[in-house]
């Protein structure tokens, strides 16, 4: 799965489950600015567990890795390809 496909999956999940109706988000947008809080970050982690079948290790739970959809997609892609 390439990075764009992961970004699409994450965007779809956020727009359907986390974000308010009519709120659109793009891969480069800061998640905090879009209204996401700490609970939402955990929801994203749990979605990654379910969808991609792996747990992001503790040492990778860094603010910079969860700043945007693109940053998360890069992280997921690294684990999927290794």
């Amino acid at each position: 799965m390439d990075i764009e496909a992961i970004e699409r999956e994450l965007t779809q999940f956020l727009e359907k489950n986390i974000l308010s109706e009519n709120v659109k988000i793009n891969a480069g947008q800061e998640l905090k600015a879009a209204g996401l809080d700490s609970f939402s970050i955990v929801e994203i982690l749990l979605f990654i567990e379910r969808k991609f079948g792996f747990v992001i290790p503790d040492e990778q739970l860094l603010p910079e890795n969860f700043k945007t959809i693109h940053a998360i997609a890069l992280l997921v892609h690294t684990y999927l390809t290794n």
Partner: protein
Amino acid sequence: MKDKSFLFPKKVYLSGADWFLHVLDNASDKKRFDFNIIRIVLDVEDENYATTIINRLEQHDLVNWMLNIQLKKPFFFSKPYWKYKNSTNVLTVNYHELGQNSLYDLKLFQQAMRVNKTPLFACDCVKENGVVSKIVLSIHHVLMDGRGTSFFLEELHANDFSLKDPFDILQYFPKEKTTKIRWYEHVKNMYFIKYFMYQHQSQNNANFNNISSNSFKIRVVNFNQGESLQINNNGQLKGAKFGLNQFLLAVSIKEITELFREKNIQGDCWLPIPYDGRKRGGNGPIISNAISFLFYRIKQAEQKSIEVIVKEIQFQMMDQLRQDLPKKYSLFLEMMRYIPEKLFSFLILRASAGNLASFLYSASIEQTRDVANKFELQAKNMHIIPPFSFPPGLTISFLTFNGQLSLNLVYDEALFNESELLAIIARLKIKLLAI
């Protein structure tokens, strides 16, 4: 001013959490239950700001609605709801002179609000040397939660306040869910919650429940921008992976558990933490507690250091979100709206056996979110004083405004004397700021 009250929905149903708060208030100590009030203190920059805010409040449709509603309690399988009467009550702004008093010793902070007896919204102005220096808004917690309060304040401070479409007022109110849930799903869910609470709540919980004077005090501690940045950095250093909130909560738990030890109170720390059930990025609804809860238990062995507490909170948060607990608890509370009040009250008290919480921590306004970010008309500063409600008689909350963090404490006077309180604040500061 055009009367738009004909646009108000005829019935605004209380959410499960609204009804739960109301029942809990009524079930708790009778002398205390009128103080479940969120108070917002706005620091006035200039006279123009004060005049604008007061004018806006006087014209505000939602304020009109809040001043003129009546609670209709459930009657045999119906749900509780707010009924709008007529616009007979109008906003009266009360003025107080600060004089030699400290702000939070003013009588207005001890003013009670009672559902169906007094209006559930109030506005007070505090004057210093004849000039308004603070505006204090009081809103009963059964009407609104922390996030709703924040939406209300954002709208009050918006540039386009007077240009709103009249139909926008419908966005203030919650929409009742239309998806039908079958009775056996409710029963299954109820058993899940019952089992969860049995496993987690009915244990050895430390609390201050036996210490009570029925009068309370408020203390606000401000941190400057440099200190607030330092606290934010410390949060990351202490392992708060998902945001500052887990660090602030861990510091509060550490301090309170040390207090328990000082006062020879044994047990684990047991905390229900509000979880905002709204979708993110929107601006409503303002009315109703759209919250559910997560429940954290920090055992005595885990109270050793802030790092361990942060780790434990994060583990329990992930575990409970994995089980979809907030959604299930919310569904459970929604169902309980159909139960007669007295029975519901009996069930809550029996299940908790007086152990509702070790203390209360208000997290409904996400601490990493700066409330001032969306303000166009700027207040000099703002504080949100959390409600003083049912036992345990101690509430801690944090708020970030203009990049500055503030710590807000509301506590029963019998819990600490002045010197003990100063020591608590000093220790909290050290824990927050020390590297």
